[in-house]
C-alpha cells in the first residue's frame, strides 16, 4: 500500500479533467520527529501524466507541496476508456506508476 | 467562577517557595514525594490529574536520584500542592457541572 495513486479522469465536452491523489509523505526536511531528530527530506520531484502514451502534463514538485499531493488539470480530447498514465520519481529515486481509464 | 480558579492556581505556585526554606534531607525529600504521590493518586482517581503535577513529580524524582534533596523536596511539595488543587477542582465540579449542562 506504500505507493498508491487514486485517479479520476472524466471526459465531457471534448476535454478530459484529471484529478489525482498520490500517497507520499512529502517530507520537507524542516520538520523534527518526536525524538527531536530532523526527518530527512523525501518528496516527489517529477510527476508525469500521459494520455494514450502522449505526455499531457509534467509537474516539478518541491518540498512545499502538501503531504499526499492532489492535482487537478484538464486537456483537450480524450474519450471514455482511453488510458491515462501517471508516474512519478522522488528525490530518493523511488518511483511509482499506474494507469487508469477515462470514465 | 473562573477568577476564583485562577486565584487558586496562583496560591499553588507560591507554596513551594515557602517550603524550600526548610533544610532538606534524603528522608524528608522521600517523604515529600510519598505525600505528593498519595495526593496524585487521589487526583487521578477523580479523573483530573494536571500535566504540571506530573512534570513536577518527574522533576522531584530526578533530583532525588541526583542527590539534590532540597530540589527534590521543593518539586515534590509543588507537585502535592498542584495535585491538591486539582482534587479541589474535581470535588467542586462534582456539584458544579450541573450548572453547565444543557437541558
Amino acid at each position, binding site marked *: 500500500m506504500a505507493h498508491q495513486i487514486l485517479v479520476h479522469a472524466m471526459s465531457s465536452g471534448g476535454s478530459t479533467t484529471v484529478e489525482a491523489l498520490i500517497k507520499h509523505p512529502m517530507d520537507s526536511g524542516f520538520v523534527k520527529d518526536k525524538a527531536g531528530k530532523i526527518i530527512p527530506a523525501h518528496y516527489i520531484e517529477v510527476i508525469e501524466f500521459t494520455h494514450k*502514451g502522449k505526455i499531457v502534463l*509534467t509537474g516539478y514538485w*518541491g518540498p512545499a507541496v502538501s503531504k499526499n499531493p492532489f492535482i487537478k488539470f484538464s486537456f483537450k480530447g480524450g474519450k471514455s476508456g482511453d488510458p491515462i498514465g501517471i*508516474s512519478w*520519481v522522488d528525490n530518493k529515486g523511488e518511483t511509482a506508476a*499506474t494507469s487508469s481509464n477515462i470514465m | 467562577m473562573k477568577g476564583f480558579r485562577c486565584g487558586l492556581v496562583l496560591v499553588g505556585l507560591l507554596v513551594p517557595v515557602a517550603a524550600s526554606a526548610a533544610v532538606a534531607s534524603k528522608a524528608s525529600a522521600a517523604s515529600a514525594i510519598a505525600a505528593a504521590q498519595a495526593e496524585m493518586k487521589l487526583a487521578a482517581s477523580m479523573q483530573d490529574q494536571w500535566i504540571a503535577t506530573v512534570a513536577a513529580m518527574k522533576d522531584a524524582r530526578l533530583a532525588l536520584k541526583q542527590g539534590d534533596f532540597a530540589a527534590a523536596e521543593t518539586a515534590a511539595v509543588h507537585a502535592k500542592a498542584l495535585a491538591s488543587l486539582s482534587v479541589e477542582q474535581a470535588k467542586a465540579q462534582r456539584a458544579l457541572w450541573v450548572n453547565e449542562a444543557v437541558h
Partner: protein
Amino acid sequence: MTEIEGLILSAPSRRTVLAAVAAGTAAGLMRPALSFAAAAAPRASSYPAKAFIQHSQDATLQAMFGTSSVTASADVKMDAPDIAENGAVVPVSFDANAPKVTAAAILALDNPFVMACAYKIPEGTSPAIASRIKLGKTTKVVSVVQSGGKLMSASKQVKVTLGGCG
C-alpha cells in the same frame, strides 16, 4: 461569529470517492504492483533542481525560466484562501487566459525555498491547474505563467495562523 447560509448537507464528490473506493472500481484505486499498463518512470534528470533552492522571486524565476522579468496581469486568475485553515494543506489554483502557455510556477515568497511547484504544459492542456501546497507562515503567493516566452503573474497574500486546536 454567526452561522452562514447556503449549507451543503453532504458532499456528492466525497460520496463518489467513498463508493468508488468501497467498490474498488474504475474511479480507481490502482496499485503499481498490480497495474500491467504502468507507464515508465519519468526522468529525474529534467528536474529544475536549481530553481527549487532559491530564496527570492527573481533568483527563482531566473533559474526556472531564464528571466526574472514578470508582469502582473489580470489574465492570470488565481484562487487561494485569505486565511489558510492549516498551513500544511493550502489549496492554490491558477487559470490563465493567454495563448501559448508552455509553463507555470507557484511561488510562496516567505517559504524557506520560494518555489513550491512548477508545471510544463504541452499544447492541448489547459493552463489551469489546482494543487495543494504548504505555507510556513503568512506570505504572498504568486502564480507565474509563461506565455509566448513572456512571464505574467497574479498574486495574493495568504494569512497563516497557528492551528489553535492541534
